[in-house]
């Protein structure tokens, strides 16, 4: 987004794995914006200016979404090299466009390999546009599930959402460009979070703890503002950001990463002014923030937010009839209604368990809070401005059938 931005100080041992052509495109955006972190491309054709691990196009094409073995075979040749490359990295970012062939097929394998090499793996995945068809969406969904399972955390950009960012006349090419840039922004924001030399540093362990095991889908947004009112503006932009559903996503967030980058003039008051509304929005969420100073941001302020959604009850994977017929082995059996009886416990065991509970207060208790339901307002119509007619505590201007609970269907 800022071509004039020159290299951002590289975080400690961060490496980027760009999978597929989408990954390569994002990498291009990163390069253009001046982010030169060590990167490896995983693609069926060579990527310019980047070390590329070539995959056999034929093998990739043969990969069936349901057949894990074929995908593994496709990557098998390059796996040792991949692991070697990942060795020594603390964090590996995997950038992939899901829904196509390469991204969906091997990104989770690459994530597993990086993890095996001892790195923390954060995935950045672009989901296809809805117009690309249900098949691709399903394929992407499956890829995402697998990537989530393999990586420590996944930041996901449904391309469909960028419709809100571009105008009607944007060409398809430009739209993909915007998507790529957004993903590049997310990568840069996450990278900055880890960047050393921050005003307020994020502890690497904290980040790991937050991401590790969450296997959750994340949303992100980036906003920039300049001028004396930048702190206020940037928050306004952020809370109105379409990718955060106008700030609603923050309210439902389980945890949020906030990265603030400003010029040398970045004051603590500014940081506070940014964080206050965000903290207020993500009440009940674990907020992790970092602030960094970069002289290229003189007079400007950039804030990146990566929000992880609350773990929703695992909805059954979307599966229509054709999916069931074509992939019978993937249909899952519904959870059994049978509830196992409580295990038999000796008094000692019970005492031990009870003791445990009291000694270690449950962490989730703090998050338990009364939800506020949206108040349903019944219009008083033509009596809106008049004095309400209240008898026995009932507002008689509200239709009787509503007060008596008559359901009209």
């Amino acid at each position: 987004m800022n071509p004039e931005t020159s290299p951002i100080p590289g975080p400690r041992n961060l490496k980027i794995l760009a999978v597929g052509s989408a990954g390569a495109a994002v990498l291009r955006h990163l390069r253009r914006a001046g982010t030169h972190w060590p990167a490896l491309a995983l693609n069926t054709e060579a990527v310019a200016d980047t070390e590329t691990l070539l995959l056999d196009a034929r093998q990739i094409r043969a990969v069936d979404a349901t057949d894990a073995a074929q995908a593994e075979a496709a990557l098998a040749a390059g796996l040792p090299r991949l692991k070697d490359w990942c060795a020594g990295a603390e964090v590996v970012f995997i950038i992939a466009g899901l829904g196509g062939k390469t991204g969906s097929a091997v990104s989770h394998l690459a994530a597993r390999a990086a993890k095996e090499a001892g790195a923390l793996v954060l995935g950045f995945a672009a989901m296809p546009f809805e117009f690309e068809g249900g098949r691709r969406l399903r394929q992407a969904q499956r890829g995402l599930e697998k990537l989530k399972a393999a990586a420590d955390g996944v930041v996901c950009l449904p391309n469909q959402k960028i419709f809100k960012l571009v105008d009607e006349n944007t060409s398809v090419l430009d739209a993909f460009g915007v998507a790529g840039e957004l993903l590049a922004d997310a990568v840069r924001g996450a990278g900055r979070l880890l960047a050393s030399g921050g005003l307020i540093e994020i502890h690497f362990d904290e980040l790991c703890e937050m991401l590790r095991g969450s296997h959750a889908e994340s949303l992100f947004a980036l906003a920039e503002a300049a001028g004396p009112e930048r702190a206020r503006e940037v928050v306004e932009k952020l809370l109105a950001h379409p990718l955060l559903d106008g700030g609603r996503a923050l309210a439902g967030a389980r945890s949020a990463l906030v990265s603030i980058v400003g010029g040398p003039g970045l004051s603590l008051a500014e940081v506070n002014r940014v964080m206050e509304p965000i903290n207020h929005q993500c009440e009940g969420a674990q907020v992790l923030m970092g602030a960094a100073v970069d002289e290229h941001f003189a007079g400007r302020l950039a804030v990146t937010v990566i929000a992880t959604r609350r773990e929703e009850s695992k909805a059954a994977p979307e599966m229509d009839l054709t999916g069931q017929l074509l992939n019978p082995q993937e249909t899952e059996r519904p959870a059994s209604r049978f509830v196992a009886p409580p295990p038999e416990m000796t008094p000692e065991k019970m005492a031990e368990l009870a003791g445990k509970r009291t000694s270690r207060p449950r962490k989730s208790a703090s998050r338990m809070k009364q939800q506020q339901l949206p108040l349903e307002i019944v219009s008083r119509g033509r009596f809106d401005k008049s004095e309400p007619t209240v008898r026995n505590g009932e507002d008689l201007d509200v239709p009787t059938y509503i007060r008596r609970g008559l359901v009209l269907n």
Partner: protein
Amino acid sequence: MFDNASIIVGLEIGTSKVCAVVGELNAEGALNIIGVGQARSRGVRKAEIVDPAQAEEDVRNAIVEAEQMSGAEISSVYLGVSGGHVRGFNNRGVHPVVSDDREISEEDIQDAVKNAKAVNLPMDSHIIHAVRQHFSVDGRDGVKNPVGMLGSRLEVDVHVILGNFTRLQNAIRVVKSPALQLEVDDVVFNGLASSLALLTGEQKEIGSLVIDLGGGTTDYAVYADGVIKHSGVLSVGGDHVTQDLAVGLKVPLSRAEQLKLEHGSAVLDENLKGRTLVQHNELGLPAKSINLGHLRHIMYLRLEEIFQLIESDLAQAGLLDCLRGGVFICGGGARVPHIDQLARRVFQLPVTLGRANCINGLKSALDQPEFAAAIGLVRFGSLRQKRRTGTSRLGGLLEKVRTSFQFGA
């Protein structure tokens, strides 16, 4: 054409219509209705004026029509008032008879009534009527006229109807506005006026309830033993029915009003369950279907509620058992089909749809239940004028009202 003194005009500025009725009082003291004028009301909500300019215009239209029809010039009116601020209650006043011979004089009565009126009232309330009910001399109840009787202690029960001074003033100001140049002879509670038009002396004696189902309010008055026992205003009326239908059936108010008039009824009809009415748009294409069953149900619940609220109010006052004359319904609400059936069910009493049958005159006007209040206003005026010409004027509103109730009917 006529001596102006014998022309009596009743003006009711209602929520749905403004109605002026012209009566002629001939030399023999017989009242004859000679003209009616009405206009759609646009500046009134819940029987109170919200748009004086609009109300002024509507009043002018009604007055002009009444003048044309009767051929009389209208210079002063009896103004009917109602609204949520109007309420009635009973009070008792005591006066020791001080004359040497212990004979009760007219002055003693005045004093007793004055004491009865001295209620602890809020600052801005104004007594519209204070109607004498019964006297009691030395603890002996049921004395109708104690003048000339002997006794040492005179007590009187009065029914006081009061309203908010400023809110009453709003209606008076419209009538007195420079554009209309009308005088207000007196202000009368609509519920009282309606009962004057509907009830005969016998019905008052055996106990009757008059319900004026208006557009914005429902006014009611109870008579027993020949005097008014109870009165009240419920700020719920035909407008509420329309509003309920508009909300429930999701149609505009004007359409809801039309549906109410064309398909409304006060009782449920099993045959209508699930039947729909297809609405056509301006192109003649079916636009929306209205469920007639729902329409009836919504309307039924609202009307039933109105009656139930009145019934519970009367039950609280302990008056339900003295209504041997039954229930009389007037106002626009009396036009709802089967409203008598519904009222019969709620009150468990015989129900009559009101006809202003104690006055002579235009049959077309007298037969309309909507005009009952305005006709009652004329009757109120005629009784007052008869009294004025008959005996020396004692002054005060109280005397006027006393006249209407003790010697009228």
